C-alpha cells in the first residue's frame, strides 16, 4: 500500500515515458483541432478576400451597398450599445443596491435574450410591430416604419445585446459592496455625486468590458436582424446580412472582403478584452461571484 503511494507521488513529480507521450499527444490534438476549426477558417477568409489582389479587395468594400451596410451597422451599434450601457448600469445598480419584490424575476428576465434563439427574437418583433402585428395597423396609420426598416434592426439588436453589460456589472458590483457609496452619502454627497465620483470610477473597467462584448455582438448579429430587416439593399442590410447576400449571389470575393471586416472587428474585440482582463483582473473576480449565483 505504502509502496504504491510512494510510486504514484514520485510519478507525479517525474512523469514516466508513457505519461510524457500521453501529454504530448493531448496537446498536439488540441492544437491541431484549433488549427483546423479556428485558425484555418480565419486565414481562409482573408485569403479569399485578397484572392483577386488588393485593388479588387478595395473595390469590393467601396461598393455602394457594402458602404451603406457598413454605415447602417455602425449606426445600429451606436444606438444599441449606449442604450444597453444605460440599461445595464440601471439594472445592476437596482439589483445590487436595493431590496425589492421581483428582484430575482428581473435577474432571470435579463438572461432571456441569451436563452432564446435570435430568430425567435426577430419574429417576436415582427409579431408586435409588423404590418399584421398588434401595433402594425396603428403604426402604418401614423406612417411609422419599424419592421423592414432601421428602427426594427435597432430594436432587435438592443434585445439581443441586452444582457451583456448587466451580466458583467452585477457580479462585480456585488463583490464590491456598497460601503464606499454609503460612506460618500454620509459625507454629504448627493446621488449625482455618488454616482459620478464613486460608483462609476469603481465599475469603469467592468463596464468597458461589458460594452465591448455588447458592441461586438451588435455588429455581428445576424439571426434577429435578418428577420426584421427585409433585406433591402442599400437601406436595411447590415454588414452580416450583406455578406450573406453577396455570397448567395456567388460574389465570393466581395462576400469575403466584407466578411474580413467582421473578422477584424472580432480580432480587435478579443485583443481589447484580453488587455482589460490583464490590466484589471476584472473577469476573474466577476467569474467567482457568478459561480456563487
Amino acid at each position, binding site marked *: 500500500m505504502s509502496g504504491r503511494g510512494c510510486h504514484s507521488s514520485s510519478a507525479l513529480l517525474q512523469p514516466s515515458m508513457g505519461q510524457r507521450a500521453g501529454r504530448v499527444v493531448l496537446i498536439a490534438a488540441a492544437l491541431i483541432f484549433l488549427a483546423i476549426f479556428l485558425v484555418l477558417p480565419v486565414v481562409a477568409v482573408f485569403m479569399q478576400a485578397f484572392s483577386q489582389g488588393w485593388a479588387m479587395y478595395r473595390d469590393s468594400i467601396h461598393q455602394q451597398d457594402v458602404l451603406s451596410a457598413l454605415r447602417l451597422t455602425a449606426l445600429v451599434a451606436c444606438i444599441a450599445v449606449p442604450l444597453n450601457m444605460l440599461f445595464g448600469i440601471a439594472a445592476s445598480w437596482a439589483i445590487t443596491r436595493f431590496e425589492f419584490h421581483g428582484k430575482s424575476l428581473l435577474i432571470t428576465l435579463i438572461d432571456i435574450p441569451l436563452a432564446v434563439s435570435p430568430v425567435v427574437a426577430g419574429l417576436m418583433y415582427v409579431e408586435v410591430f409588423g404590418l399584421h402585428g398588434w401595433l402594425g395597423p396603428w403604426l402604418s396609420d401614423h406612417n411609422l416604419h419599424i419592421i423592414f426598416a432601421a428602427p426594427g434592426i435597432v430594436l432587435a439588436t438592443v434585445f439581443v445585446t441586452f444582457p451583456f453589460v448587466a451580466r458583467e456589472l452585477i457580479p462585480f458590483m456585488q463583490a464590491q459592496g456598497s*460601503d*464606499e457609496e*454609503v*460612506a*460618500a*452619502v*454620509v*459625507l*454629504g*454627497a*448627493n446621488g449625482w*455625486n455618488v454616482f459620478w*465620483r*464613486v460608483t462609476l*470610477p*469603481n465599475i469603469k473597467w467592468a463596464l468597458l468590458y461589458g460594452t465591448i462584448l455588447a458592441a461586438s455582438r451588435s455588429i455581428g448579429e445576424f439571426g434577429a436582424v435578418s428577420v426584421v430587416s427585409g433585406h433591402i439593399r442599400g437601406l436595411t442590410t447590415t454588414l452580416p446580412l450583406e455578406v450573406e447576400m453577396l455570397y448567395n449571389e456567388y460574389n465570393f470575393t466581395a462576400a469575403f472582403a466584407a466578411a474580413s471586416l467582421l473578422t477584424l472587428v472580432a480580432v480587435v474585440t478579443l485583443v481589447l478584452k484580453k488587455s482589460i482582463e490583464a490590466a484589471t483582473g476584472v473577469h476573474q473576480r466577476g467569474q467567482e461571484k457568478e459561480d456563487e449565483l
Partner: protein
Amino acid sequence: MSIQVEHICKQYGSFTALGDVSLTVAKGELVALLGPSGSGKTTLLRIIAGLESPDTGSILLHGEESTEDNASTRGIGFVFQHYALFRHMTIFENVAFGLRVQSRQIRLLRREIRERVTELLRLVQLDSYARMYPDQLSGGQRQRVALARALAVKPKVLLLDEPFSALDAKVRKELRDWLRRIHDELHVTTVLVTHDQEEALEVADRVAILNHGKLEQIGTPQSIYDHPASPFVYNFLGNVNLFHGRLLADLSPEERDSGAEPSIQSAIGFVRPHELELSRDLPVNGKAVTASVVRIRSAGPQVRVELSIAGNGRPVTAELGRAKFEELELVAGDEIFVRPQSIRLFDDDGARALLLDQGAGI
C-alpha cells in the same frame, strides 16, 4: 451636539434588532455601545446615522427631531469597520471628498480645502502618505485616513462602527489610545460600537451594554464593572465563575425560637477569578470549599489556576498575583482551599440582583 435616542424599535422580519431602546449621549461625551454580535448595537448606530430608519421611536440631535432627516444632511462623521475608503482616490482626495461635494454656497476654496486636508493628515500622522492609494497602506493607517475623512467636514457627531476590529491586537491597542487622545483634543460627541469589552471600558466615558436588542445597563466603566445589573453584564465584562446554589434566608432570633424553617431560594452567584482566595489552610471562619488544581497558566503578570471543586467536579478559575502564587508553591494535582472574597447573587432567572453576602455558602 447631544444625541437622544428615544424608544427606538427595529424589526427585521421576525427578528427584533432593537426593542425599545432609549439613551442619551451628552455633548462632547464618548459613549461605547457594547454587546455581542446580534445585540443590535450596529443597527442602533446606523439609525443614529440615518442609514436605517427605526420602526418606531425617534432620534433627537441637539434636541431637534431628526428621525426623518437624510444621512447626508445630519452633519455626522461615520467610520466603518472595513474603512470603506474610496479605492480609486489618493489619500488626499479621500480626505477632501466631503469638502468637495459640499454645495457651492458653502464649499471652501480650493486652497482652503488643501490646507484643511493637510492639517487633518498631520493630525492622523499620515501627511507623507497624501499621494498614495488606500491599498498601499496598512489596516491601521487606512482606519486613520477614514477618521480624518470623517472629521474633514467638522461633524457634530462622530459615529464609529467597530473601527478597530479588523486590526491585529497591538495596532488595535495603539489606535484605541490614539482615538481617546483625539477625542480629548476635539471634544466631538462620539458613539463607538464595539464587541470588545476591554476597548469599551478603556476608551469610553460611559458604556451602554446591549443584549438581544435591549439596553442592559449604561454607566461609567467603573460603575458597570463594579456593579453589573444583570448576569449578562457580569458575564460579558470579563471572565467569571458561575455557581448555582440555594440561599437560606437569615432568620430573626424570634423566628428561630418559634422553630420556623428558613425559606429556601435557588440562586446563581458570580465570582471573578481574582476574587477567589486560595489558601493551604482552612480559613478561620471555615467558609471555604476544597478544590484540586487542574492546570496552571503562569505566563503574564497574573497566574491563572484552573480548579475542580471537590465533590461536584465543577471547573473554577482563579487568578492571583505572582508573589502569592510563589508563596503557595502550587502544582497541578494539589488540594487547596478556595474562598470567594465577594460574590454577587442573582435569583434564578437572573432578573433580580440579590443582597450581597460575603462568603455565602456555595
